[in-house]
């Protein structure tokens, strides 16, 4: 591969336009969803009420759906299309199918968003039955999911075509990673698609009278945990295969990176019960089995941590820094393409530890549904993942628009990252502590039955409003940077930084690309973890539930 030359070759306009479309939706979502988050922290401070009779749970639903489902999915698909275009290419037909996917997802998003905004879907992004939203909400969600599948199958096709033209060669690493992520996404989202299409849509339209609540929840969480790995893997793609290039190094190990991704595929799906640990109706032995499977993710995570720091050290030593930590000081701290993802990596350490606590079977009871959990995923998805996405956007957006990341914008990016780190440290720490003290998540301001315990919670909620305000300033700055990079930065060629393999790297074993084998094991693990408990849940089902509209304020 002629690495560097390809990195500097801009995409044809037609291709860049498709990839950029996903970025526009991403950053509009950031602004809208971020504003909702700001308002939430204000309401929970107890010092502010929403104007125009807007309901707290409406903005909470918008925040979760727009940031958790829309921003992430659009960014990921756009970024992955760009990776595929760069590494294996895209045909005219594939690009057209990509557009179909984009529009289908956008129509679905708008449908769901409008339904939420008019107050017909105050069900939060988990839409737990038997709370019943307007059917348009579920149909919108179904369109987003099916639209994303079209992208996934386009990506599969892109690699297939490339493989046919390059018999005997291993697939490019980043293309391999995209395919893993999309395989995981398709297998996982089948669960929620089945639930939405077979359970929710007919039930909300009145074609079926009742819904099986526990089955719908189990199908949701079968999807819900791999969803978070779907967010994370594109960040890992950057950590493994992009950051080494930015710091002036090479890939640490092609085969280790592939192995880590395969392990993440295997252990991402048969684990949903760790979100249902305190639920009735599920045998605790099966909960424990899924807890064990969940913890297997520690292995690829440790591999990733090792690879990243090994890359940093090897690169630094090649540049001639021989003292024990000298190489660390000389990392390119002034380059936002490195600095933003690096801060994300740091946040992933407490984020990952918190995740282990959450999934620890009985330990979960201390934090389940407290605002600790909210603090946790604001470190993982809203810092580790999001700052890496920003780190990608700093070079991807100008590469797509034919502009340059200037020194001035780079500096703004560094400031943005620092603002984010400060705001999130305040907000997330306050959330973690309040959660340990029992403060609940997903609740508007309330003094409950009063007393000393509730008083301590309110103080932390004030701190969250301070952190939330700082974060919102960070969002405004990021939007400004995005507009600059899209429309105003000077024209030029920004590098698409893909790291090359070392000349004397070891050969990657062929077995790592045996899709039948890995998909087969994935399905076998899912069947093992879910078949018996699912049969139990269905066999011991209580009567189904009719739709409940009034609790969410629907007439």
């Amino acid at each position, binding site marked *: 591969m002629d690495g560097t030359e390809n990195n500097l070759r801009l995409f044809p306009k037609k291709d860049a336009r498709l990839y950029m479309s996903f970025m526009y939706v991403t950053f509009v979502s950031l602004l809208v969803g971020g504003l909702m988050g700001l308002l939430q922290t204000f309401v929970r401070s107890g010092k502010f009420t929403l104007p125009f009779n807007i*309901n707290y*749970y409406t903005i909470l639903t918008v925040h979760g759906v727009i940031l958790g489902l829309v921003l992430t999915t659009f960014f990921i698909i756009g970024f992955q299309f760009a990776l595929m275009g760069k590494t294996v290419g895209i045909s005219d037909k594939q690009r057209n199918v990509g557009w179909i996917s984009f529009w289908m997802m956008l129509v679905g998003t708008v449908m769901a968003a409008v339904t939420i905004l008019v107050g017909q879907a105050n069900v*939060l992004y*988990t839409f*737990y*039955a*038997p*709370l019943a939203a307007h059917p348009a909400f579920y149909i919108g969600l179904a369109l987003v999911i099916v639209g994303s599948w079209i992208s996934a199958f386009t990506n599969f096709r892109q690699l297939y075509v490339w493989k046919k033209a390059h018999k005997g060669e291993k697939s490019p690493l980043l293309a391999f990673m995209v395919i893993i992520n999309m395989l995981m996404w398709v297998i996982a989202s089948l669960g929620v698609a089945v639930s939405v299409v077979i359970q929710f849509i007919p039930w909300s339209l009145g074609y079926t009278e009742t819904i099986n*609540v526990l089955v719908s*929840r189990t199908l949701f969480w079968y999807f819900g945990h791999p969803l978070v790995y779907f967010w994370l893997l594109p960040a890992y793609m950057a950590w493994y295969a992009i950051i080494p290039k930015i710091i002036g190094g090479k890939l640490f190990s092609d*085969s*280790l990176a592939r*192995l880590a991704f395969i392990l993440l595929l295997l252990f991402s799906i048969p684990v949903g019960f760790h979100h249902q*640990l*305190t*639920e*009735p*109706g*599920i*045998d*605790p032995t099966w*909960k*424990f089995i899924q807890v*064990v499977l969940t*913890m297997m993710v*520690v*292995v690829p995570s*440790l*591999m990733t941590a*090792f690879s990243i720091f090994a890359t940093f050290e090897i690169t630094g030593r090649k540049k001639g820094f021989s003292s024990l930590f000298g190489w660390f000081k000389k990392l390119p701290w002034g380059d936002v393409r490195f600095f933003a993802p690096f801060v994300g990596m740091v946040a992933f350490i407490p984020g990952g530890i918190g995740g282990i606590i959450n999934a*620890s*079977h*009985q330990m979960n*009871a*201390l934090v*389940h*549904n407290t605002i600790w959990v909210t603090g946790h995923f604001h470190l993982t998805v809203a810092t580790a993942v999001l700052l890496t996405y920003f780190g990608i956007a700093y070079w991807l957006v100008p590469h797509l628009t034919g502009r340059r990341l200037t020194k001035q914008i780079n500096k703004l990016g560094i400031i943005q990252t620092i603002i984010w780190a400060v705001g999130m440290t305040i907000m997330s720490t306050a959330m973690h502590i309040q959660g340990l003290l*029992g*403060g*609940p*998540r*997903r*609740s*508007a301001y*309330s003094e*409950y*039955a009063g*007393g000393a*315990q*509730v008083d301590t919670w309110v103080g932390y909620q004030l701190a969250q409003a301070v952190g939330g305000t700082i974060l919102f300033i960070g969002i405004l700055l990021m939007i400004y940077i995005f507009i600059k990079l899209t429309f105003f930065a000077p024209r030029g060629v920004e590098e698409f930084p893909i790291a090359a393999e070392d000349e004397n790297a*070891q050969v*990657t074993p062929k077995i790592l690309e045996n899709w039948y084998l890995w998909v087969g094991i994935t399905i076998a693990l899912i069947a093992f973890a879910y078949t018996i408990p699912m049969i139990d849940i269905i066999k*011991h*089902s*209580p009567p189904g*539930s009719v739709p*409940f509209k*009034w*609790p*969410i304020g629907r007439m």
Partner: protein
Amino acid sequence: MHLHKYEKVWLTFGMASLVIFLLVIGFAAFWKGTHPQSHLETIDQNNVEAHDSFKPENLGLTEVADGKYKVNMVASAFNYDFGVDKDEKPVKTIRVPQGSTVLFTITSKDVVHGFQVAGTNVNMMVEPGHISRYEAVMKNKGEFTIVCNEYCGIGHHQMFGKVEVY
């Protein structure tokens, strides 16, 4: 596939810690009986009064033996029904002496709710058609807020109660 020597050490250490960790929580769960709430009994959510525990006269706090109590409750949007006191007024606070063992039993008449006695290990999901049950020893004195910690509708944050340990 080649693994660096240090990486082998790192992974071995990591995986060994993981095994120990899983053994600890597995031992606590299966031998010490600290599983999370996983009661398997179902109920017709449209007729919860048919179940002995949820008959109106059986709701609220009952002393079953010396230092042993049970609390039966019905959740509905946006209220916990702890029964009524002598003056037929709804009970809002459950009072138990320090060190007592309390069995909390709860079900939902409508949507999914949460039941957490904040500051204790009592934390469970409450789902229509299922009965949730958890036994806890109330070791510490004080007032503990009961919160619905699963979103149940626009009055969710108004759904609460209190446990007083004296």
